[in-house]
């Protein structure tokens, strides 16, 4: 037997392990919510006076996108979502996540005024960058975000007809992710 092969094989095994480890993103934490029912909530919409809850989307395959005007990466992602909304029949619901940050001057305002400020900012932002959302909801205190396991904005979910979360993306949705992951999944979910 060629004995010198043993350490060589071990060495290459180690190299493969380390190479795979290096390529993985430590910030990407597998969500335990995949294949679980999307948490229910009722929040005010961006349009004054409206309310939204995920139950309204029953029977549709839809996308749930967490964003904020202060989120820099969202600016990169937004054109992709706008193009996606134009091309495909998948409704996107936006969740404006903690629009008013604690260090913000507006954080000192009363609750209803905070909501007003958040709405104004979001509207201006969506007018400028395009609005891909069928509805936008306002999560001012980030509680709904916690129920969805949000830890970095943007985050995107695909929810099926039965209201079950099928996919989660932490970070920017790219055209490649749409082509490789989201579109095939949506087609599959729509067929079932």
């Amino acid at each position: 037997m060629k004995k010198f092969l043993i350490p060589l094989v071990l060495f290459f095994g180690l190299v493969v392990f380390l190479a795979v480890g290096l390529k993985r993103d430590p910030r990407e934490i597998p969500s335990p919510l995949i294949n679980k029912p999307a948490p229910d909530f009722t929040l005010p919409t961006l349009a004054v006076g409206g309310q939204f809850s995920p139950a309204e989307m029953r029977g549709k395959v839809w996308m749930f996108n967490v964003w904020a005007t202060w989120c820099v990466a969202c600016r990169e992602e937004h054109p992709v979502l706008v193009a996606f909304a134009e091309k495909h029949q998948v409704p996107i619901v936006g969740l404006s996540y903690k629009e008013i940050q604690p260090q913000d001057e507006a954080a000192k305002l009363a609750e209803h005024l905070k909501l007003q400020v958040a709405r104004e900012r979001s509207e201006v932002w969506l007018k400028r960058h395009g609005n891909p959302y069928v509805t936008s909801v306002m999560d001012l205190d980030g509680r709904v975000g916690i129920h969805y396991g949000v830890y970095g904005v943007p985050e995107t979910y695909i929810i099926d007809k039965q209201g079950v979360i099928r996919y989660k993306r932490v970070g920017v949705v790219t055209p490649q992710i749409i082509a490789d992951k989201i579109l095939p999944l949506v087609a599959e979910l729509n067929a079932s």
Partner: protein
Amino acid sequence: MKALFKSGKMAKRAKSAKTAKTAKTAMVLVVAMLSWAAVHATPTTPPREARPMATNPKVEARLAEISHELRCLVCQNESLASSHAELAEDLRREVRDLIVQGKSDSEIKTFLVERYGDFVLYRPEVKPVTWALWFGPFLLLLLAAAALGMYLRQRKQQVTAPVLSDAQRERAKQLLKDTL
């Protein structure tokens, strides 16, 4: 003897002077770095004030206890107790509310694991998914011990003491004597 003692003392003194000097240099460096950081810190983020503690010290004590066991998702090597990330603050608020509602520690942990996964626990539960994590290192240790055992046994078979004839032994003795 006296001189030797003296010089030793002197060397000691010189050494302490030297360490004092390096300490001084280090201090100057640290001060310089701090002032540089102060000057170059981005003015857009004013120092955030600590949130006022909730009124119930019992709740706060439990919060501190539980949050030491929980990982902050944003700065992953910090516990929820020590992190200043905004999400950590929100999660502490959530845990505080759960404590006030009278939830047990395991219920609170389940709440977070259901949303953020086992990753939030510094000591994940032992279950099939985490077996590799808990027992993997011991398995590797066992494998290494087995390999070592095999290697040692093999070597024992290879290295047997050579049997010398009387003539050879006599010659070895002679050689040793000659060298001494």
